[in-house]
C-alpha cells in the first residue's frame, strides 16, 4: 500500500495532527504574503489586466502541485483514493463562484488573502474579513430556503479525467500547457494595459518551463496504477485477511439484508468467469475486477436532500 498520505491522526494523536495543520497553514500564509497577496490593490489589478500576479501565482501553484501529486501517485508513493478531491456540485459551484467573483472585485480580497492582510495590519483587510464572517453567517441562516438547489447537480468525486475520458498523464500535460499559454497571454496584457516592460529572457524562466513540461511528460510516461496494480500491492495484507475470514459477511446477515425492503443489496462476484459459471450465489452479478471502479460510479450515490424545516 502506498505509504502516503500519512495517517497523522494515528501517528501523532489528535493535537499532534493539529500541530501539523498549523505548520502547513503557516507555510501557506507565509507564501501568500511574500507574493504580495496582503495588498488589495495588487489583487484587484488582476481584473483590470494591469498586474497578473494573481493568475501567475495561482496557476503556477496549481500546476506545480498537480505535477508533484500525480508523479507521486504514479510512482506508488501516494494513494490518490485517500486524498480529498472536492466533490462536484456543478451548478451550486458555478453560482457560488460567480458570487465570489463579484465579492472579490468589490472587496479586493478572497478569504485566504484577507487573513494575511489582517495579519499584516491592513485595515481594509480587517473590514473584509469581518464582512466575510458576516456573509458566512448569512449563508448558514439562509441555506435552508434553497437546500434542494444547493444539493443539486451532484456528480460525486468527478475528475477532469472522468469527464474528458482521457488518461491522467494527458490531462496533466494539457493543464500545464494551458497554464503556460495563459502566462504568456497574461504578460502580453500586462504590457498593453499595465505598461510593464517586456519580460527579460532568463535562464530561470527557461529552466522553469522546461522542468514543468518535463515533469508532466514524466507523469504521462509512468502512467497511473490500475486497479490490478493496486491489488498486487495490497494483496499480501488483504488476502491474509480474506484467508482467515476477517473480512466477510455472515450468511445470516446477508439473508436478512436480502429480505429487507429498505435495502438495495448488490452482490458482485469478481472472480474469474469460469469460477462464476461453476458456482455463484443466486442474484450475484459477475463483474470483472477491472470494471469495478466504473460500476461503482454507476451506483446511485446521490445524497438524499436533508429537510430541515418541517
Amino acid at each position: 500500500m502506498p505509504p502516503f498520505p500519512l495517517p497523522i491522526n494515528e501517528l501523532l494523536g489528535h493535537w499532534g495532527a493539529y500541530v501539523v495543520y498549523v505548520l502547513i497553514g503557516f507555510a501557506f500564509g507565509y507564501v501568500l504574503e511574500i507574493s504580495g497577496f496582503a495588498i488589495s490593490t495588487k489583487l484587484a489589478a488582476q481584473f483590470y489586466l494591469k498586474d497578473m500576479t494573481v493568475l501567475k501565482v495561482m496557476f503556477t501553484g496549481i500546476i506545480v502541485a498537480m505535477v508533484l501529486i500525480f508523479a507521486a501517485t504514479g510512482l506508488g508513493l501516494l494513494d490518490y483514493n485517500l486524498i480529498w478531491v472536492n466533490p462536484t456540485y456543478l451548478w451550486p459551484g458555478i453560482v457560488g463562484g460567480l458570487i465570489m467573483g463579484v465579492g472579490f472585485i468589490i472587496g479586493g480580497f478572497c478569504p485566504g488573502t484577507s487573513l494575511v492582510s489582517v495579519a499584516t495590519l491592513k485595515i481594509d483587510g480587517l473590514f473584509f474579513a469581518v464582512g466575510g464572517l458576516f456573509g458566512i453567517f448569512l449563508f448558514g441562516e439562509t441555506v435552508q430556503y434553497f437546500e434542494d438547489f444547493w444539493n443539486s447537480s451532484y456528480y460525486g468525486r468527478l475528475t477532469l479525467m472522468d469527464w474528458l475520458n482521457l488518461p491522467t498523464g494527458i490531462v496533466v500535460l494539457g493543464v500545464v500547457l494551458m497554464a503556460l499559454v495563459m502566462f504568456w497571454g497574461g504578460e502580453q496584457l500586462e504590457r498593453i494595459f499595465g505598461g510593464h516592460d517586456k519580460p527579460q529572457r532568463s535562464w530561470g524562466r527557461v529552466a522553469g518551463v522546461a522542468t514543468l513540461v518535463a515533469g508532466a511528460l514524466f507523469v504521462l510516461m509512468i502512467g497511473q496504477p490500475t486497479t490490478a496494480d493496486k491489488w498486487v500491492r495490497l494483496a499480501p495484507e488483504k488476502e491474509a485477511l480474506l484467508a482467515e475470514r476477517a473480512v466477510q459477511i455472515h450468511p445470516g446477515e446477508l439473508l436478512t439484508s436480502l429480505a429487507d425492503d429498505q435495502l438495495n443489496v448488490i452482490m458482485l462476484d469478481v472472480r474469474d468467469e469460469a469460477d462464476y459459471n461453476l458456482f455463484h450465489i443466486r442474484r450475484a452479478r459477475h463483474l470483472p475486477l477491472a470494471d469495478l471502479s466504473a460500476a461503482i460510479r454507476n451506483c446511485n450515490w446521490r445524497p438524499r436532500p436533508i429537510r430541515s424545516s418541517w
Partner: protein
Amino acid sequence: MTTAVVNEPKRRGWRDVLFGRPEKPYVNPYVGGALLGVVLFLSFFLTGNGLGASGGLNRYVVFLQDLVAPEHVDRVAYLLKMAGGDKNPLDDYLVFMTLGTLLGGFVSGWQHGRLKVETNKGPNISVHTRWVMAFVGGAIMGYGARFARGCTSGQALSGGAVLSAGSWAFMFAVFGGGYAVAYFVRRLWN
C-alpha cells in the same frame, strides 16, 4: 590625546522591533507560485487534505452562534453538522490551518518590513468608502464561498491541483464573475 569611540547600543523599543525592519520587495510571482505549489503538494502528501480558509472561518462563526443560541444551531441542518449537540465546531483541522495562515502572514510581514497599519485603496475613493466596500465585498465573498463549498484556496487551488471537475468549473466562474463586474466598479480601484 586619544578619543574614545563609545559604541552605545541603540535602544530599540517594541515599535522598532515590529515595524523598524527595512521593507523588502515581493518575490517573483512564478517563484511565489512554485513555493505555493510545493506547500499545497506537501499538504496533500502528508495529510491527504488540501489548503483552505473559508471552511475554518465558518467554524469560528458557528462557534459564536453556538454560544449565543445553541437551540437554534441544533435546528438548522447546515449548522447542526458542525456544532450539533455537544460537538465543538472548533475541533477541526481547518480551524488550526487558519490560525497558522494568520501566523505565517504575520511573520513574513514582520520579517520583510511590511507590517503597516494602512488602508489600500484606489486613488479616487475615500478611506471610509474603501472600508464600507471591503465589508460589503467580504460579505458577498463569504456568502459565495460557502455557496460553492469552498473559496479560492479550498476549491480553486486544492481542487484544481487534484483535477476535480467541479473545482475547475468553479475557478472559471470566479474569474468570470470578477471580470463581468470589474468595469462597473472601476472607480473603486482606478
